[in-house]
């Protein structure tokens, strides 16, 4: 089991998607801040921000252990899981991608915990870091 970086937003895996002039977006890799893996329909949404630009949950495609999921796929599956130690890659559409250099990245991730009063739900973890696009 390879170890992940301590930060929720990993330095590894932050990159442009597509190549050359054809940049279609970017990817950011996260590890789960929760203490267990979950059925994906307990994920209540994710929000990505880069340099102040917000990318909403419905625009983002998750990749977990080689399988891609839209927000709807996560919600509708009865069997899909996000294992505790499997990083998730968030594919974020953005024509042209991100510039080479250092960016301010924020990810806000929400889960529905069944064992906490519903008035106090969802539970949202938010992490921010500077992360670098190398090329």
């Amino acid at each position: 089991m390879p170890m992940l970086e301590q930060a929720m937003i990993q330095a590894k895996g932050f990159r442009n998607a597509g190549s050359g002039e054809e940049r279609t977006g970017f990817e950011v890799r996260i590890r789960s801040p929760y203490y267990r893996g979950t059925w994906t329909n307990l994920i209540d949404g994710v929000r990505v921000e880069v340099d102040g630009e917000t990318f909403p949950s419905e625009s983002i495609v998750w990749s977990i252990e080689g399988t891609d999921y839209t927000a709807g796929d996560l919600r509708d599956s009865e069997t899909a899981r996000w294992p505790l130690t499997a990083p998730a890659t968030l594919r974020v559409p953005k024509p042209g991608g991100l510039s080479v250099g250092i960016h301010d990245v924020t990810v806000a991730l929400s889960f529905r915990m069944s064992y906490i009063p519903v008035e106090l739900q969802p539970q949202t973890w938010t992490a921010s870091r500077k992360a670098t696009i190398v090329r």
Partner: protein
Amino acid sequence: MSTEPAFKLGVSLYSYTGDFGVVMDLEDCAEDIADLGATGIEILGEGHILGYPELSTAWIDGWHALVERLGLTPTLYGSWLDTRRHLDRSMTVEEGTAQLTLDIELASRLGFSFVRPKIGVVTGDLVPDPIWSEVVERNLDLAHDRNIVICPEIHWPTSIRSQAVDDYLALIERTGTTSFGLLIDTGVFQLSHHRRTEPGLRSQLGTGDIPAFPTPPVVPVNDLRDVMDQVVYFQAKFHEIDDQLVDRYIPWAEILDVVAESGYTGWLSSEYEGDRIPYRASDQLRRQHALIRTLAPSRVGALA
């Protein structure tokens, strides 16, 4: 006078939440537990089983080889009844029953003796989803066959004198089962609330302005005497033991008095829930076990 307490000391892998997958893997955690002198190991099924809910033969073999090599006894397997998986409806009895059956079977194959289903709640004061009793009852025969005791967790801010505990005890009364009992998380006795830090994370409950978590009165340790007969397991929840080996949050001396007096010989399984800074759990677990080992002999001695 023995210097070893009558109860047994274990550690839950939950303690290593700040480390697991980051600076420690399953084997590292197990080795740390053995190194600090505990003999029981508790896991979270959905947290620590690679590939849950499918178990590979290799993983099962590796698990058994690991605990045998280190002289560790698998104690409790933590599971969940995730009643909020669907936005438009709650969990059915059938779904809940299937989930608990799945976890009992997995726990059994890994050699555990206890399964704790964490049950979803339906009210602001933490009343468990009413499906719980039928879900449990439908699994009692299986649990009995597998030598597993199902134990719901009494967890702060639920207190011992509560409707939930009364309902759990009523099930035992009604069915006469020996495959169901209480798990007491020692966090219910907390004297004040520890505010945990998680480096690099902000955590929020709810959206916008939300009601504060209820602040229950401090639960007197004495309440524990009333239910000790039905207690099958302790999660020895703690948050911070200071450099003078003092825990300002959990009244260990009082708890160990009741535990020793009752003749309890089961597990005290440490659940470190303090700051989630890597390596802190290993250090704090050693402090807690030194503290318990220091306190326990005099408690036992007081009874002799």
